[in-house]
């Protein structure tokens, strides 16, 4: 430390004597007046230009673009929701149509069922009528047959009885018995 101070003092003296020294005290750290002057002018100009001329249109363009993008996005959203509602409309309609179709099919089926039932009923009625007619016919035939058969049976029975008992049996007396017998055996 001491040596350094000593040396520096020596150096200062040398500087004072200094014809040898070329030090023009041009300190590289300190600013010079002309550079300050031009720098200040430059900065002031640039600030004024940026603030009033250069920046506003650029910011306006960017703002416009942001707005445009936002409105486009909004429009896209609206279109999307619209498309969604249209799609749901279509599906609603589709469901309606489908329900209608089911309804029509059901109605047709019910009608066909009714038709079938009606036709079957008619056929059954017809069959029943035919059957009852046939039964009546049969009954008539039997009646007739019975009516035809009764007196001869009674005669035969009376004949047979008179032969068995060796006495005359009145046919008219035997008739009710024969009738009863025939009816019970019927």
């Amino acid at each position: 430390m001491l040596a350094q101070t000593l040396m520096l003092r020596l150096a200062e003296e040398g500087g004072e004597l200094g014809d040898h020294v070329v030090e023009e005290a041009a300190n590289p750290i300190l600013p010079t007046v002309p550079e300050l002057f031009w720098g200040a002018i430059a900065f002031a100009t640039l600030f004024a230009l940026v603030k009033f001329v250069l920046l506003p249109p650029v910011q306006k363009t960017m703002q416009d673009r942001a707005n445009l993008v936002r409105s486009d996005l909004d429009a896209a959203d609206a279109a999307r929701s619209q498309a969604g509602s249209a799609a749901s409309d279509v599906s609603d309609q589709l469901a309606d149509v489908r329900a209608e179709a089911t309804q029509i099919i059901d109605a047709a089926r019910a009608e066909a069922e009714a038709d079938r039932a009606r036709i079957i009923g008619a056929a059954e009625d017809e069959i029943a009528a035919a059957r009852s007619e046939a039964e009546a016919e049969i009954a008539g035939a039997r009646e007739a047959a019975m009516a035809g058969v009764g007196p001869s049976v009674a005669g035969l029975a009376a004949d047979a009885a008179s032969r068995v008992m060796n006495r005359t049996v009145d046919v008219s007396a035997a008739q009710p018995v024969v009738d009863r017998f025939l009816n019970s055996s019927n």
Partner: protein
Amino acid sequence: MFAALEFPSIENLVEWPAFFGDGTFYAFNKIALISMLAVIIPTALFLLAKKEMVPRGVQNIVEGTVEFVEKQVVLSAIGPEGLKYTPLILTIFLFVFFGNIFEVIPTFQMPANARMANPLILAVVAWVSFVTIGIKSQGFAGFMKSSLFPPGVPKALYILVTPIEFLSTFLLRPFGLAVRLFANMLAGHILLVTFGVLCITLATASPLAAILPFSYAMLVGLTGFEVMVSLIQAFVFSLLTAVYIQLSLHAH
């Protein structure tokens, strides 16, 4: 055997003869020319940029810059209320960047910010801005109170704290801003000059010419590095200005 490394004196590296007006206050040298170009180039870029909905070319560059400053600097440091200071921050960013980038542009090869003048002007602008904004938003007394008397400190300690706060807020902030930019650019400039001089010296020193490629590769690499430094310094300067403005907007 070794070629002497004739390193130029610092005056040759940073001081430039005047084109006109030598010796007067308006001496126009290379630094002043770069300052002027730092106005003309951004102006030309902004005017050339078309104002179309689908950006291309120059418009992309300009809008990218504006968006970077708005998002990364203003919004991230101040927030939405700082958007009205965008012109100031953008001007600082552009001026610093174009003052820096001439460090690597051939025929200029000199950052305007490696002289103290421009950093000093920018620091004064930042200082005036944050003091004015502080006084405007908090009132003079409120601003002084919030910046000199931080809350949560025992009353007696203010004897110690207030001078320190005064120093750090009103002297060290602008000083730091100016010196940070200036020293970064001067260091980068000297670094590039060193490797440039080394390349030239090696080219003329026959036995050592073998290591010239390494020195040259280093020079190229450092040039790329200095481009990055130019950008980062512009970013940092505008970001710090924004942070100081934010600090004076509200009492803490």
